[in-house]
């Protein structure tokens, strides 16, 4: 196995603090160097916040695991300088086909909107993403990435946490003002702080097989309900780079995980699916079961949770890694401001408010898809099959809307967030307070550029037309003006259209590229109040 990828082995290095035997206080310790922990580290570096990342292993993810990356994740990762590389290596796709038995039931187009830098969805093995991130981290001297460091205990103090860490050189103690646990669905940190992790457990098992084959299938997502080659169950096919194809077989609850993982069990299944002639090699396989659940609070004292450690979803809809990336996108700017004393700790609590809301939205979507894909009773199965049969009727558009093979990940707007300033003026379109900013092609100094690359990191006042000030401040935090017509041009008018802008319209944008407030005129007093609100001050 593993013909297409060579796993790097990262060196274990004993830290000076362990060697010297002194207890050092760190501003931020991130536990887990998976995609979410690594994203958090890069985001910390982007905010000039030094951090230590601890991982109990010394390589990247084994197996392809999270393979679908959606536009918003790619935009966040582009801000962190790895998105472009992912897009270049990854496989873009936009068409999904759903089959019922031996027939095409319907197809959907992700309908990627033009004039966005990032595509709607790419497929890329998780190990590539992690490898690119580790490389990028190597360029940041303030990220201290430590392999073979396992956290075995956490003690919470009033204003910091004390970690016991085990390395090949034994145990030592670290202190951290803040700890960010990104240690996955089976998070041991979650257990250490006594957090609850509840939700719905699904009595079903799935087999993931990554096979290498030269196939001329179009780059599409294919999903089968009850296909002849795997009766009564579902199958999902996805293309990845390096001629690797991900096949996901539903097995049912009675399947024996250890048996089903054996090549002699997998190969006949794949052969039945592909037809006998096609040659393939098995790259990686895994049997999994899943639950849809989330942590009761994303913050326990000085310990914060992100990614699968905070919420676990079914794989249908690509909501795992994608929502994890949005967690850290939401958190790191807040941590930076709180650590620097520029915002009260209440700003950190807005992380739980906003991301728990998003997690619940994801869990709802994920649970619904799972209920459709794996009906829990004979009656729900009849309804599911009725939907699929009706969907084949060319005229029954409504039934195609009901087919749910996983609603693909889209960011959840924080529409009720306490950081938002509600609209006073009338606006049309999608850019309501709490929404992630839409991208648009712009020009900067006569050169073609993308809007999202012009914002983020700090607060921005996007002003359509001349602004009466260069920035607006609250305390030490300034929102700098980005003036359309002066700093950036909007040659195609896409920016103005997406933001429903008229001359004088101004938007207050957060460091994580979300809309905080908007007005039809530039009113400094109102902007200051909105900025204070966005800082939870």
């Amino acid at each position, binding site marked *: 196995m593993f013909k297409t990828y060579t796993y790097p082995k990262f060196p274990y290095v004993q830290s000076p603090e362990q060697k010297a035997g002194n207890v050092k206080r760190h501003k931020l310790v991130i536990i887990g160097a998976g995609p979410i922990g690594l994203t958090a580290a890069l985001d910390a570096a982007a905010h000039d916040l030094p951090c230590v990342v601890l991982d109990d292993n010394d390589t990247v993810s084994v197996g392809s695991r999270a393979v679908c990356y959606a536009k918003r994740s790619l935009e966040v990762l582009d801000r962190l300088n790895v998105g472009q590389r992912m897009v270049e290596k990854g496989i873009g796709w936009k068409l999904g086909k759903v089959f019922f038995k031996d027939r095409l039931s319907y197809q959907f187009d992700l309908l990627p909107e033009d004039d966005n830098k990032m595509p709607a969805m790419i497929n890329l093995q998780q190990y590539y993403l992690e490898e690119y991130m580790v490389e990028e981290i190597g360029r940041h001297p303030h990220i201290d990435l430590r392999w073979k460091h396992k956290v075995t205990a956490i003690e919470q103090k009033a204003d910091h946490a004390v970690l016991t860490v085990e390395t090949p050189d034994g145990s030592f103690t670290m202190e951290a003002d803040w700890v960010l646990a990104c240690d996955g669905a089976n998070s041991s940190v979650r257990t250490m702080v006594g957090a609850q992790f509840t939700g719905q457990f699904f009595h079903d098992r799935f087999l993931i097989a990554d096979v290498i084959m030269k196939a001329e299938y179009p780059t599409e997502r294919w999903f089968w309900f009850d296909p002849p080659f795997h009766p009564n169950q579902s199958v999902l096919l996805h293309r990845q780079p390096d001629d690797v194809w991900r096949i996901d077989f539903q097995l049912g609850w009675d399947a024996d995980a250890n048996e089903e993982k054996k090549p002699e069990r997998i190969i006949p299944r794949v052969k039945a699916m592909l037809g006998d002639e096609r040659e393939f090699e098995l790259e990686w396989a895994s049997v999994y079961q899943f639950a849809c659940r989330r942590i009761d609070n994303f913050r326990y004292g000085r310990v914060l949770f992100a990614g699968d450690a905070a919420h676990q979803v079914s794989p249908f809809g690509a909501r795992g890694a994608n929502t994890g990336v949005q967690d850290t996108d939401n958190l790191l700017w807040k941590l930076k401001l709180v650590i620097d004393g520029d915002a009260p700790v209440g700003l950190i609590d807005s992380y739980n408010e906003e991301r728990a809301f998003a997690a619940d939205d994801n869990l709802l979507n994920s649970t619904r898809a799972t209920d459709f894909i794996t009906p829990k009773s004979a009656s729900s199965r*009849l*309804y599911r*099959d*009725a*939907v699929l*049969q*009706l969907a084949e009727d060319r005229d029954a558009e409504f*039934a195609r809307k009901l087919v749910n093979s996983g609603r693909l990940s889209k960011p959840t707007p924080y529409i009720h967030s306490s950081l938002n300033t509600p609209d006073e003026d009338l606006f049309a379109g999608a850019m309501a307070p709490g929404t992630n900013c839409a991208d648009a092609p712009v020009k900067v100094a006569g050169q073609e550029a993308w809007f999202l690359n012009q914002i983020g990191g700090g607060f921005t006042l996007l002003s359509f037309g001349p602004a009466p000030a260069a920035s607006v401040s609250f305390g030490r935090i300034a929102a700098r003006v980005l003036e359309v017509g002066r700093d950036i041009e909007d040659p195609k008018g896409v920016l103005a259209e997406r933001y429903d802008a008229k001359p004088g319209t101004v938007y207050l944008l957060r460091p994580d590229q979300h809309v905080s407030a908007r007005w039809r005129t530039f009113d400094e007093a109102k902007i200051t109040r909105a900025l204070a609100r966005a800082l939870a001050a």
Partner: protein
Amino acid sequence: MSLILNPNIDDFDDFYKELIDSQRHMNDAEAAQMNCKLVLLLANHIGDRAAIREALERAGGAV
């Protein structure tokens, strides 16, 4: 709009016969499958969520 419970179909004896006859050639499984399709088709036609919810309730469902 609340659910219409007054007679609303012209010649309901004829309607009822048509409903029963439509499944006369089916076994139980086929009829159950058809019933599900019928519910989905009619629910979409009604469209009004409150009316559908009331129907679910009156039919004995947990809402």
